[in-house]
């Protein structure tokens, strides 16, 4: 790791102010993604702001019947939370499908949303990667891209967002609450939070420099059967090739997908259709596949079939 200085923040506003004072800084929460990348010198912050002591580790009902999840709530605790298990089971299921018991004990809600791609060339500092080094090229386009995106890609980057939790958050229409150095707060709908790569794949979210996530809020629960189905190369402790989050209930059906794009993928128009064939065709309209990852479309169709049979 490159040397860095370290300080602890005691309030969210103070954390955001610390970040504004030192532009080459990063917040550190669980550290399970950031430290991994710092060891490889893919991330090289000069200053770390430890947010672990902030009072942001509670899950509380909101007055409109929803749930407010503090940015520091650990993935294990969120998955095991009684209200989440009962009313937002798809979120429990998505969290439990990710990483390992040890990692989920450490990983936080905010850190999970902000985890970076698992594209093999992003990790290989000897190869060009526009996300790691803007303007250097994309080694994945002509390389190993079996696991990479088929929707919303660009000439610059075909990486996927690796989070399971984020797919459930997208399904549930979550909203990301933040605070900035000047004390201003805002709520960003999850649909607008993660960005498509376009010409700037190094810009991954709508967060402004130094903006701190304080919570993720969920609207009132959606009735129906909650399912999260993840397809991967081994049955545990592996990232998704594709995943489907679904709620099927009396008021209709909704789906969000992982492993397809640079952000959790959702096509609301497809939710009016019936059957895996029609839904898959609508969800993957305009797909750009490579010979290696074209399998994701039939895999998606079959996985949706299984989800609909289960729901």
């Amino acid at each position, binding site marked *: *790791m490159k*040397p*860095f*200085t*370290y300080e602890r923040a005691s309030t969210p506003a103070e954390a955001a102010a610390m970040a504004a004072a030192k532009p080459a800084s990063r917040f*550190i929460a*669980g*550290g*399970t993604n950031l*430290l*991994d990348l710092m*060891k490889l010198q893919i991330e090289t912050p000069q200053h*770390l702001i*430890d947010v*672990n002591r902030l009072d942001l580790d509670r899950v509380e009902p909101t007055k409109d019947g929803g749930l407010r999840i503090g940015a520091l709530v650990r993935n*294990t605790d969120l*998955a*095991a939370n009684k209200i989440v*298990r*009962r009313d937002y*089971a798809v979120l*429990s*299921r998505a969290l*439990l*499908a990710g*990483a*390992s*018991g*040890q*990692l989920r*004990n*450490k990983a936080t809600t905010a850190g999970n949303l902000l985890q970076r791609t698992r594209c093999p060339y992003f990790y290989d500092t000897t190869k060009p990667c526009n996300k790691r080094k803007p303007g250097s090229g994309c080694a994945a386009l002509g390389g190993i891209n079996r696991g990479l995106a088929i929707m919303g890609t660009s000439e610059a980057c075909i990486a996927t967002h690796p989070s399971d939790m984020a797919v459930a958050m997208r399904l549930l229409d979550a909203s990301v609450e933040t605070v900035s150095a000047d004390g201003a707060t805002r709520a960003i709908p999850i649909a607008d939070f993660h960005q498509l790569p376009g010409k700037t794949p190094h810009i991954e979210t709508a967060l402004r420099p130094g903006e701190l996530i304080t919570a993720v809020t969920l609207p009132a629960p959606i009735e129906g059967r909650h399912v999260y189905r993840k397809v991967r190369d081994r049955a*545990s*402790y592996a990232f998704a090739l594709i995943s489907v989050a679904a709620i099927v209930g009396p008021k209709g059906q909704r789906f969000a997908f992982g492993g397809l794009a640079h952000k959790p993928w959702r096509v609301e128009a497809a939710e009016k259709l019936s059957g895996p064939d029609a839904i898959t065709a609508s969800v993957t309209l305009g797909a750009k596949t490579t010979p290696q990852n074209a399998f994701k479309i039939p895999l998606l169709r079959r996985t949706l079939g299984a989800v609909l049979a289960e729901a």
Partner: protein
Amino acid sequence: MQTTLKVNGKTERLDLDPRTTLLDALREHLHLTGTKKGCDHGQCGACTVIVEGKRINSCLTLAVMHDGDAIKTIEGLGTPGDLHPMQKAFVTHDGYQCGYCTPGQICSAVAVLDELKAGIPSHVSADLDKIAFSRDEIVERMSGNICRCGAYSNIFEAIADVAGEKA
């Protein structure tokens, strides 16, 4: 940077470069070499320790982030003359070959049984509210601990023994 860790019940004051991981603080500074470094990237579980009652990968966290925290390592679970039941069961059931992954496996296994008791669900729990011991539950929950020697079936038997279940 001044950092205080409560390791296996003993208060340790260290002056650390902020880059020091908890794993390196334990091994290089406190000479508690029971905890192992495998991948150093959160992928193998050899570095698993129990911090404030929860198992984590000590390679993916900084020691300075744990100022004041209580940490339990394999050395704190039991001693050669007075083994923890999980350590004893690993010996009885041959739950290892080379032994490199074993401290992490044992720390993880001890925490897994606590997680089952606390009703924490897993990916294979059919009902998120009814958590019970089963082979599938243990296999899933232990998947963050890799054993290159492939001692998995004996590791399962050791855990089942401590849980009071038939393997």
